[in-house]
Structure formats: C-alpha cells, structure tokens
C-alpha cells in the first residue's frame, strides 16, 4: 500500500509536500519530547535532592552531625546536569544538539541517582528507562549518544573507582563492554522501533500529502467549475459557494454565505424549492429543476439547479450540494427560436394557402376547356381534322394540369405530406397499358417504336393506382421526350424473385452523362437538354416519381452508358396477390350510361358549371346547377338528389359546410370537385363527408368513374 502511495505521489509530483509534512511532524515530535525532558529533568533534580535528604541527610561525627555531602551533590551536580538541557529546550527547541545534550544529561542523571542510592541495583533501571524515554524522539542517533555516555561512565569508573560501579576493587576493562552490551541490547530494539516509527511517519506524511492533493484538486474543481456550485447546510444557509455562482447572482462570497437560497430565489419559485428540499430529505436522491434567481441588481436569471443530499457514513443528512447553470441566454434563444418557428409556420401556412388558391385559380378555368374538349373529341360525326384539334386542346390542357399537379406534388414531397390513397391490389400491367395508350400518339408523332414486354407473372402491387400511374406516365413521357425521332422505347416487366416486381423503361435516346446521372432525381434537374424544345417540362417528374415509389416501399434508379447511348429507368416494387376473378367481376360498377343519377352540381365558375351541367345531362343524368350555397340549399330542399358535386370555394360559403349540412339534413352523398388539391384539403373534404375529392381540371371520364365507384 505504501509503495502504491509513493508511486502515486511521485507521479503527481507531491513528494516535496510529503517530505515537508514529514519534517513538520518530526520537528513537532522533537519539540514535544524536548518539553517532556525539560519537565523530567526538573523532576529528576528534585527527586535526587529528595532521595539524598531521605537516604543520607547528614553525616555524623559522634554525637554531632552536619549536612551530608550527598545533599550538596544532589543540589549542585543535579542542578548542573539538569539546568543546561532545560535551557537548551528553550534556546534550541527541536534541534539535534538539544536532543543529544538531553541524552547525555539523562545518562549523567542516572550516574548521580545510582550514586545517591548507594549503587542500588534498582536505580540502574533508570538507565534503561531513560533509553526508552529517549526513544520518544524517534531519533535513533540520541540512543548512540546515551550509550556512549553509559560506556564512558563505566569505563572511566572501572579504571578509577571500580567498586563504585562493579562492586569490586579491580575490574576487567571488558566489564564496561559487558555493561554497555546490555544497553546496546536494548538499543537494538529501540532503534528498530524508531526506524519503524519513522517509516510510519513517512507513510502518514505521504498519505496526508496525497489527501491534501486530492482535497486541493477537488477544491480547485469546486472553485473554478464553469457552473455555479454551492454547499448548503441543513440550516438552509449557504456554507460554501464558488466564484461562478457569486458572479451569476452578483453577490460576494461573504454576502452569499450569510444568505439562504430562498433569499435569492424568485418569489414564484420559492414554494417549489421548498418542496424539492423536502423530497431530497425524504427519498429523492437528486432533483433537477429550472428556476429563477434574483440577482443582487434585481435582474431575474434562469438557471438549471441540480441538487443532491450529502449524507455521512451513518446515512445522516450532512448538507446539500447544488450545481447551478445559467440558462438565461438559452431561454432567450429558445423564445426567439419559438417565435421564429411560429413565424416560419405562419409563413408556411400562408404559402400553402397561396399555393392552394393558386392551384384553384389555375385549375378552375381549365376544367370547362378540358371537359368540353374531351367531350367534343369523342363526339361522333365531327370531322377528323376537328377531332385532332379537340385532341390537341385536351392534351395541352392535361399537360397544363399536370404541370400544376407536379408543382403541388413537389410542395407535398418537400413537406413530407405526399399521401397515398391506397386501394386494393393494382394491376400494374393494366396501368402500363393505359399509360401506353395515353402516350402512344406522342410516340407515333416522333416515329418512336414503343414496345411493351410485360413478362411478369406477378404484376399486382398494393398502393395508390393514380400515383403509380403517374410514375409510369412520367417515365414514358421522359423516354419519348429524350429519344430522337426514329428511336425505340421498350417497357419490360419481370419478377426476378417471388414477390418482387421490376419494371424497366429503356430507350436509345440522348442518354445521361455520368456527371448528371446522380442528380436526375433531384427537382428541376434535366441535365443537358440542348436540341430539345425549351418548354419541354419543369424537371419535376422524376423527383416526384422517386418520392411516390419510395412511399410504396420500392426503389427507382437510372442507368445510362453515357451521352447518346440511351437510358434505363428501373422501378422495383413488392407484389401482392390479386383479388379473385369473381370478386373483381362482382365489384365492377355498372357500365357508363346504364344508370341515371339525380345530381346537384354546385359551382361558382359559370363556364365550368355550364359545361359540367351540359355534359352530365348528355349522359342521361338529371342535373340541377347551383352557383351559390344558398341556391344549392334551396334546390336540395325542393328536390331529391342522389349525389351532390360541389366546388369548395363558393361566394356565400364553402363546400365543406354545405356538404355537412346536406349530409345531415338529407343524407346526401357528395363528390368534391375543386381546384384545392393539398393534403389538408383532402382531409377536410373527407371529414365533411365527401366520398371523393377530384382536383380540377378533370375530364369527364374521370368524373364518371368516380360516380360509378361512389354508387
């Protein structure tokens, strides 16, 4: 253990302090033992006189007597022996010379006492007792001085007064060695004891130095901690506080230690503080709370105060330890951040509102055009040239609607609000065939060969059919767009493994260079489109497609061997089992034209209302148009309807409230037909009781399919 402490001390550079403590301790022992001997010397002197007075008070000459020589010897020789060492303990306390003079004097006192008692053997024990007392110095060297005196005393008296020491008239010189030998015999063990004591003292010094070092480290940590620290006594007064806390609350250390935490706590937080203190005393080991302090200058600061109860070794509460961190700035920052966040959210809501309004305003005028063009394109008996013109009108309106949809979708993707309307299993092959039909005319115009190789046996996936179709349509439109005239486009499906559906759309078009390839799925990225029409898209399709595929749990990737070497887009989706054939047949709605409905159409855009009314009536439905909420309510009160087809933004109200009222009053079912296509709008219409939400512009087929489904 001592070695470990030594190593620790050396590694910490505290050996000097340990040495200093050792020397201090040793010096203290020297001084205290000096004092002991000062008293002992005086006592021995008095004792010697008393002994002389008792044993040999007077010398007799016949009948007369006079003071015995021993009396004078005890007074003067005893005084001479004692006084000088006593003076040394005053003049040179703790010095080695004092110790050695005391050792010599103590042995000389033994000589005197032995002589005064007539050489009694019992008095010789004074020598051995003195050696033991001298070992109190824990300095073995004084034993050497004492032993030398003993030896010289015996040696000299053995020569000049042998009887006084050995009881014989002549003694061998070795007799003094023999006597000294017994003294040395005792010395050996006393020296061992001294050395052990020195080792223990050094060990204690090392331990003390280590403790001091540790205490100093902890005190430094406490004093210089970057957070406020305080020790609070059970009397609720600060016992110790560090500089950081003083600086935090603006009080000096003296001021703070004369106060209680409650005195510098905000009034509203005092009760909470007291409750937490009670919790600490009862069972809670630690409390952490945000509270307010009152600075000396009256300013309020926020702080996180962590406190615990320190207990002694018997588990009794001793004091509290509190750590206080100033979080005023953090609080201010949090408030500012919250305000900024609220501001951003307000701006975001304003933007969404604007986008919704923009979408509505942009879509609404397109609706009558699209519906009219689509209807007229299918009108039998018109000239082919006129049919092509109507077709051109329809496609361009659809393209315009698609661009608006893409912008809205991109907004949804960026906000993570793109949602799927998941229905039953979707036949991907059917969707591909439908998409192929849509783009076939475009392909034909560019003399592109469009091949479908639908080899996948498992071709049903779970998801939103419209969105999946949107992906396919994007991929096909891209392939047509970036493949020069005379090129070839191949759509291929397969099942690499059971449950996995892979679709590739490959072309031999302009391809994608390696620098652009990693960014093709980023919004507004179209790569180098030189040689193409400048208005050939916004570059949003792939970005939206990627988001849609990933929402379906699939992946989409692009590959290209480089510029002019075509491109391959691959979509991977998980398959599901299709519905049984019988169920499909049973769930198929009645064919268009087989059913006639009583419809209430509410639309404030006059052209749209007119076209919609006309087309629905042409299909055999009984239609009542209304341009306002009030008109709609009047018609509903006067007539019976199967469905209401309503816009949301109306001059005297909104379609949401209208639907709720019609549903409550007449049990009427409805379809929302609106330019508002944001996720929030869809949620609102669903909540209001609309069975479907159609976003303008729509073509008439789309409306018809929804009517079939709603029925």
């Amino acid at each position: 253990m001592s070695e470990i402490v030594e190593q620790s001390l050396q590694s910490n550079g505290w050996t000097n302090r340990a040495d200093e403590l050792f020397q201090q301790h040793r010096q203290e022992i020297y001084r205290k033992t000096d004092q002991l001997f000062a008293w002992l010397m005086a006592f021995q002197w008095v004792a010697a006189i008393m002994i002389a007075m008792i044993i040999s008070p007077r010398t007799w000459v016949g009948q007369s007597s006079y003071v015995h020589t021993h009396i004078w010897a005890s007074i003067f020789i005893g005084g001479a022996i004692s006084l000088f060492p006593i003076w040394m303990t005053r003049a040179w306390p703790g010095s080695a010379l004092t110790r050695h003079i005391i050792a010599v004097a103590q042995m000389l006192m033994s000589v005197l006492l032995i002589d005064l008692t007539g050489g009694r053997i019992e008095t010789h024990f004074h020598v051995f007792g003195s050696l033991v007392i001298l070992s109190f110095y824990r300095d073995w060297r004084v034993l050497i001085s004492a032993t030398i005196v003993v030896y010289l005393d015996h040696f000299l008296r053995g020569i000049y007064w042998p009887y006084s020491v050995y009881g014989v008239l002549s003694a061998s010189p070795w007799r003094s060695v023999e006597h000294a030998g017994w003294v040395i015999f005792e010395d050996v063990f006393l020296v061992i004891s001294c050395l052990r004591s020195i080792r223990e003292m050094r060990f204690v010094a090392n331990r003390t130095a280590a403790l001091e070092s540790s205490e100093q480290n902890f005190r430094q940590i406490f004093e210089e901690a970057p957070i406020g620290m305080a020790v609070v006594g059970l009397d609720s007064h600060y016992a110790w506080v560090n500089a950081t806390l003083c600086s935090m609350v603006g009080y000096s250390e003296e001021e703070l230690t004369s106060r209680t935490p409650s005195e510098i706590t905000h009034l509203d937080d005092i009760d909470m503080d007291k409750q937490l203190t009670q919790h600490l005393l009862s069972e809670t080991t630690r409390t952490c709370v945000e509270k307010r302090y009152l600075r000396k200058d009256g300013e309020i600061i926020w702080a996180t105060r962590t406190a615990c109860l320190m207990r002694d070794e018997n588990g009794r509460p001793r004091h509290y330890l509190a750590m206080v961190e100033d979080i005023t700035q953090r609080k201010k920052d949090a408030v500012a951040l919250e305000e900024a966040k609220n501001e951003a959210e307000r701006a975001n809501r304003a933007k969404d509102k604007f986008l919704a309004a923009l979408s509505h305003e942009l879509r609404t005028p397109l609706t009558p055009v699209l519906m009219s063009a689509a209807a007229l394109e299918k009108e039998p008996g018109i000239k082919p040239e006129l049919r092509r013109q109507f077709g051109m009108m329809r496609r361009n309106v659809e393209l315009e609607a698609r661009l608006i949809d893409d912008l809205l979708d991109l907004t949804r993707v960026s906000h993570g609000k793109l949602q799927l309307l998941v229905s039953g299993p979707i036949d991907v092959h059917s969707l591909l065939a439908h998409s192929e039909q849509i783009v076939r005319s475009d392909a034909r115009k560019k003399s592109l060969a469009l091949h479908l190789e639908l080899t996948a046996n498992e071709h049903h996936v779970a998801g939103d059919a419209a969105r999946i179709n949107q992906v396919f349509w994007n991929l096909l439109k891209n392939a047509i767009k970036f493949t020069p005239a005379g090129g070839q486009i191949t759509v291929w499906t397969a099942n690499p493994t059971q449950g996995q559906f892979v679709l590739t759309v490959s072309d031999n078009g302009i391809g994608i260079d390696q620098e652009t390839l990693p960014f093709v799925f980023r919004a507004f990225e179209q790569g180098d489109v030189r040689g193409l029409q400048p208005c050939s898209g916004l570059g949003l399709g792939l970005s939206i497609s990627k988001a849609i595929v990933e929402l379906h749990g699939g992946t989409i990737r692009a590959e290209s061997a480089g510029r002019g070497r075509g491109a391959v887009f691959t979509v991977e989706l998980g398959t599901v089992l299709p519905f049984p054939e019988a169920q499909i047949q049973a769930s198929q709605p009645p064919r268009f034209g087989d059913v006639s409905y009583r419809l209430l159409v509410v639309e404030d855009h006059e052209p749209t209302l007119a076209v919609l009314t006309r087309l629905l009536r042409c299909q055999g439905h009984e239609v009542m148009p209304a341009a306002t909420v009030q008109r709609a309510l009047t018609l509903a009160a006067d007539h019976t309807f199967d469905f209401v087809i309503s816009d949301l933004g109306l001059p005297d109200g909104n379609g949401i409230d209208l639907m709720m009222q019609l549903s409550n009053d007449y049990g009427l079912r409805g379809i929302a037909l609106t330019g508002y296509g944001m996720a929030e709008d869809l949620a609102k219409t669903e909540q209001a009781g609309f069975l479907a939400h159609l976003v303008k512009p729509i073509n008439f087929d789309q409306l018809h399919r929804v009517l079939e489904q709603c029925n």
Partner: protein
Amino acid sequence: MEYSLLQIGPRLRSFSVQPRRKETLLVTTLLGIAWTAGVAFGLRTILSYESKPGKIGAVPSKWPATSQIERLTNRPTLIMLAHPRCPCTRASVAELGQIMARLQGKVYAYVLFLHPAQSNAGWEDTGLQRSAAAIPGVAVRSDVDGVEARRFGAETSGHTLLFDRDGRLLFSGGITEFRGHAGDNTGERAIESLVNGQAPARTATSVFGCALANRSQKEDRALCQK
C-alpha cells in the same frame, strides 16, 4: 549566513540557525563547555569523596579483657561498631546480613551502636538498629559513650572485627569498599574465608562510614582527606 551546530545527517536541517541567534549560539557554546566541566568536576568530587575511607584506631590483637561483651568460646565472634544514624553504615549492616546468612551460625555477631550518655531518648531507635537486630545470629548492644569502640580501636562506623574462639583477632576493617555502597567486597570474603578455616586474601581493609568519636566537622573532613 548559516551556522552548523552539528552535522549528523543530511536531513537535520534544524541545526542551521539565523544570524540573529548568533549570541544565543555563543552562550550555548560557553554554557556547554561550563556544563561539561562542571558536571565532570562534580561527579569526580563525589566519587572521590565516597572512595575515601574513615579513620582506624589502635586495634587490639586479642579480645580486650576489659570488654563487657561476652565472647563465645565455641565459635568465632564478630564485632561491628556502628553509628546508629550513619547513612553509610546501612551498606555495612546489609553486608553483615549477607555474611551471617552465608555462614549459617558458624559465627556469633554483635553490633554495638554508639550511645552517647547524654543523648536523647530514642537515639538508637533507628532503622539501622532495627535492621541489624533483625539479622539472625546478631546481637545488638549499646555502646555507651563509645567505650567498647575505643576498646576495640574502632573510630569509624562499620568497623568490623573477627575474633576466633580463643579471642585472637582474625580480621579488622570494613565490609564495604565504597562509602555507602553495598556489594561483594574483600572484607566480607575475608571473614567468610577465616570462619570456614581458609586463608583470606587480606585480614585488614578500609572502613567507610561516619566517625564514632566526637570531633569537629573540620577535623572529620581532614581525616577523610588523608
């Protein structure tokens, strides 16, 4: 400037003193010298004093015919003349006790304590007298005005004489060899040898004790100095 009083070990830094204590150091040195000399002189004086024997008078070679003490004829008789208040004679009485114990009745002993005729009552009633009386085979008698002491030529307390059964003096002297110090000694061994019929190393030794006869302190010290 530092002064080193004593260099025993490298760590004993307490020896170094400041210049302001220079005078103390000088006083210490002078006192140390005086102390050494004084103590040595004192011890030498006391030891010299204690090694000085007392006066011995004219010791008769035969048992004094005028003595009132009864001499035994069947065994040797030992006579010790003692001062009842002499502190040094304690050692002599103690040695007498040793002798009597070792000789086991082979000798009969008297201790004659000085009893001045004009002394107060209880003059002899001392611890020394009681110690002597407690020794088996020892008879304690009073020696009024030291008459018997003068008959036996004893002038110093503790003077011991051994006479054979025919009254011839065998030994004269002290049975301690240092003032007031008990212990093995020549006189003791001589007495034991003589009683046991052996030849002693010496038949006379010095006597250490107080003076039995009245004389001045100056005379007494002068006698001791001789």
